[in-house]
């Protein structure tokens, strides 16, 4: 199969995925959830909260955006990628075309990544803009904070998406397992002192923030790895999860739903 044909298949599967994730009614709930950082920043500015500055922005966005919004948006979107096709009986249309099962997984994951970044990036940028405007500084003043959150959003979306995609291939009810991982495992393991947090994704996301942001609450986080290493670890973890999902999917059988 040629590169051109593979590119066409990539385009079709990612387009179908994007249209499903962003073009159907389900996107309304996702947009509202993703907008929480922006709505919060606007509310703080409108309420003229005197303590509202870039430091408070960080203190609020880490637990709210990274540990709730990011996890929930990636969970809902990544777990539907394969599972919805199976439940809706639309998978046979893809699998009776000359495209391998692992390629379907990979292309859908790429579509997912684009979709969640479209959902998650604008609100965090807008929230940052509101914060800078409210404290009377230019948009370029705290670019390290914006950069840190954007990298954490990108890498976090990739890592959580890969885990949730793997879970959705592995089990029939991926949402429940994903909720346990995203909100129980990540919260508990991520808050235990010592080396245990290294078993959580959030630890590396916080390490990215610690390494990239000059001033703020994350400077004292205490991670012993640089932002670059944290990025590499999460990218490697994401690749491993995707490869596992592809291998598992390759051996899966599909019995038509009644």
């Amino acid at each position: 199969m040629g590169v051109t044909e593979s590119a066409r298949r990539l385009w079709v599967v990612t387009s179908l995925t994007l249209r499903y994730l962003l073009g159907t009614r389900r996107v309304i709930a996702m947009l509202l959830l993703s907008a929480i950082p922006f709505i919060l920043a606007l509310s703080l500015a409108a309420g003229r909260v005197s303590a509202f500055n870039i430091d408070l922005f960080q203190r609020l966005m880490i637990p709210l955006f990274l540990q709730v919004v990011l996890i929930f948006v990636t969970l809902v979107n990544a777990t539907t990628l394969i599972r919805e096709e199976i439940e809706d009986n639309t998978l046979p249309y893809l699998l009776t075309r000359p495209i391998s099962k692992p390629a379907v997984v990979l292309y859908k994951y790429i579509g997912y990544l684009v979709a969640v970044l479209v959902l998650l990036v604008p609100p965090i940028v807008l929230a940052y803009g509101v914060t800078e405007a409210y404290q009377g500084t230019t948009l370029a003043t705290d670019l390290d904070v914006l950069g840190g959150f954007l990298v954490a959003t990108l890498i976090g979306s990739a890592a959580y998406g890969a885990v949730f995609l793997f879970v959705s291939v592995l089990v029939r009810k991926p949402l429940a397992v994903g909720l346990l991982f995203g909100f129980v495992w990540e919260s508990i393991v991520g808050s235990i002192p010592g080396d245990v947090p290294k078993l959580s994704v959030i630890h590396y996301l916080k390490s990215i923030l610690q390494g990239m942001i000059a001033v703020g609450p994350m400077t004292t986080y205490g991670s012993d790895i640089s932002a670059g290493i944290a990025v590499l670890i999460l990218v490697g973890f994401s690749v491993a999860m995707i490869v596992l999902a592809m291998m598992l999917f390759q051996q899966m059988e599909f019995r038509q739903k009644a």
Partner: protein
Amino acid sequence: MSAVAEAAGVSKWYGEVLGLNAFTASFGTGITGLVGPNGAGKSTLFKLLIGQLHANQGTLQLLGENPWNNVPMMRRLGYCPEHNQMYGWLSGQQFVEALLRLDGMPAAKASKEASAALKVVGLSGAAHRPTRTYSRGMRQRAKLAQALAHDPEVLILDEPLSGADPMARVQILRTIADFAKDGGHVLMSTHVLYEIERITNNIVLIHNGKAIASGDIHAIRALIDEHPHAVRFETSQPRQLAQALARMDHVVSLEVPAEDTLVIRTRKPDAFYKELPGIVADTKLEVRGLESPDDSLEAVFRYLVG
């Protein structure tokens, strides 16, 4: 080519449920009907043939190859699933076009071929409507269009007439017959023998996961004619439709079990299906869909398997 598909002692089970039980049959060139009641194992066999299931025992070949995870073979195959779900937010044109692009076709060619395939199945007028607005008959035709648009060697059609209205049935059968006339091979499942009889004499009878008979359809026709054939209509005018159909002398009973349903039984199903489109067109009565409950066929199978 001696056989399009061959199964030798193929068994497939889902946990403790047996889908296919040492199924052995050979599907020749042209059109072959796989006939059996619901739950007989037709869809399981087709899922094995398109490589979505893996046999627990036995060997299975389609076009001389093992279909399991056989990506290149998919170019030679067109598949129409039993279920009517589609990507509802896509139009018929976008649906067929997207699937053609998965075959590696350039955009312009895919668009042209999709339009041509939708024209063949009589869906040109609705090509740009979202498929979620399609009736069951239109969905069947859209599914058939995507299956044949890339000009495959073999079509595998799982209950392609199920739920289709009389006009759609005529269109679908004509399309299948034309595909075979042009040298294509068709494996088509149905639980209504009379449907397949209009386009082929070659059938394989399947019951409880086993092939119980195969060959010329006429050998079992006399047997089947002894059992009145039931047809269930979905219509908003069941009583008016009953009046119109009662004029056929071979109709032995009429029943209106619900406000939008009519069930008739006939001793001459072939004559019935031949006359039906004309009656519906003349009376202009609304028929949203029709299907045959498989109890009449079930009786025949019970007889065949003793």
